């Protein structure tokens, strides 16, 4: 029974990994660009949620929306002011741009919020659901279900709508898309907004159940790399499955080997993947 409990917990956390990793994979699919600051976007989403609850007394819907919106704006600003200028430049500039951004955001957060762990004050969602002996805290359950729904919505947005087709057209061939009357800069800014927004809302969802500090960004960023590599770069459905799998693996390794090993096992899996199947589960080589 304890094992079933662990599995459910892992899948619920994995759903959130799926959500923020789909943002990372979207950027990669659009423009072959790795965002080293993606984990910091998740971390900022958590603090946005905290500020909304503490200052405005907002509920889950309010702080979820606020985190998504704030990070969407940040993503667009980052694209327009930074990424647009380095994305066709040398590799060094591409990697340093977001790596530097990650440091800037992380240490600014340390400076403002201190290194102490914080958690969200009691939100209106509380209580525990008991399904056939498996206990599910309501905030975790709501967060997990919402995360999967949002990931799926992102997938639908990309595959079923005009905007999605335009995004994919730019990803396919920037110049051809331009000839079709699509403005690539606008589409890529939108992609950065969506990616950062999904990270922000994922952070807000996680903030409901887990305490955090500014350093969690690094862990989440690396987790997203592993999820995206496992799922195949550029594939949103891949990120969804892989997120659930990684959440499960983490929960099980914490259960079997001890909590400190959950990240070690996941990063080791990443190295193994690079050796054995770098294209991931659903990606093309």
């Amino acid at each position: 029974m304890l094992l079933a409990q662990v599995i459910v917990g892992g899948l619920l956390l994995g759903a959130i990994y799926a959500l923020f990793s789909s943002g990372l994979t979207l950027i990669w699919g659009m423009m072959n660009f790795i965002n080293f600051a993606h984990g910091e976007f998740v971390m900022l989403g958590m603090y946005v949620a905290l500020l909304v609850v503490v200052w405005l007394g907002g509920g889950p819907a309010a702080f979820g929306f606020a985190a998504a919106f704030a990070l969407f704006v940040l993503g667009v600003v980052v694209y327009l002011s930074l990424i647009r200028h380095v994305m066709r430049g040398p590799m060094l500039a591409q990697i340093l741009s977001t790596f530097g951004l990650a440091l800037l955001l992380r240490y600014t957060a340390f400076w403002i919020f201190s290194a102490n762990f914080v958690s969200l004050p009691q939100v209106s969602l509380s209580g525990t659901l008991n399904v056939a002996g498996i206990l599910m805290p309501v905030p975790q359950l709501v967060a997990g279900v919402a995360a999967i729904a949002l990931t799926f919505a992102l997938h639908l947005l990309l595959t079923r709508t005009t905007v999605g087709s335009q995004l994919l057209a730019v990803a396919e061939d920037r110049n051809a898309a331009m000839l079709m009357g699509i403005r690539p800069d606008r589409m890529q800014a939108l992609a950065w907004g969506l990616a950062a927004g999904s990270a922000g809302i994922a952070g807000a969802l996680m903030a409901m159940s887990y305490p955090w500090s500014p350093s969690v960004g690094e862990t989440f960023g690396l987790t997203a790399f592993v999820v995206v590599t496992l799922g195949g770069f550029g594939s949103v459905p891949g990120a969804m499955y892989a997120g659930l799998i990684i959440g499960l693996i983490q929960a099980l390794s914490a259960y079997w080997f001890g909590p400190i090993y959950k990240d070690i096992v996941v990063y080791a899996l990443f190295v193994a993947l690079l050796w054995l199947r770098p294209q991931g589960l659903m990606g093309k080589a």
Partner: protein
Amino acid sequence: MKWGLPALAALLLFYPFILTGPFYWDIGVAFLLAAISASAWNIVGGYAGQVSVGHSMFFGVGAYTPLLFYHLWGLPPVAGVPAGILVSLGLALVVGMPTFRLQGHYFSMATIAVAELIRIFVGTWDLVGAAIGLQGPAVGRGWWDLTFRSELPYYYIFLAVLAVVLYTTFEVERSRFGYYLRAIKAGERAARSLGVPVRETKLKALMLSALFTSLAGSLYSIKTGFIDPESGFGILVSVQMVIVAALGGAGALFGPLVGALILVPLQTATNTWFGGGGSGLTYILYGGIIVLLARFEPGGMHEWWQRVAPLLARRKHAA
């Protein structure tokens, strides 16, 4: 420029007598260590254009093995240096072999993930002191323990190592291997089509870089006589190498020297001004500098100077 190199050498040789006292010597040693590590990073990150953001894995291994040799068997720490280098070369293979087949981003991601993996692992491993870390001999049992009370001997040991690293880089720059590296950086596909053994060359560059980075780590731990997971494998160790090299000019021989010349005094100053809380501000500043560099001047001071120098010369002519 003809007199540039002898002047620089003389300046570095006599620095401890120009600015005397432990405070300035300490800055000098920190400068040399930053220059050594960044020069080592530069071989793979600058010349080959393979941007590692996890070079702390080599630094940490190099830093841990000497103190581990002392801790386990009471050997002089120096005895652990070759072992550290060997482990670092092995690590370079583990990271480089798979990722150098793939696009450049995989290498960057793998370096940061492996460095973090090792940092967490070492923090839980009792044999190497877990989270507390390891200590070297408190009092030297002989000169071979390399525990000096004064900073001065360390200054000259570090200076000698820096000379070796720079000379090696200089030789690499002139060799066929160096041309291969630049060709790969300029365009991997084109290089391959011209017969450059791309993967092999990148791997060699990484191993050479790992060797010197490991050596830098050893120097650090032998001098401080203490190492823990954060000061060995922490991400800030990697950041320091990247920013020093990129600020001075990645892929330029003296780039790391220039970068260290700017950053080390800056870091000392911010730590003095802001006290203990200064380190956080230092890294905000570092992040900002890295972003601005990437955005406006990815070639660092080196390329900036190459652009500005002719303009200055022309103005002087006109006047």
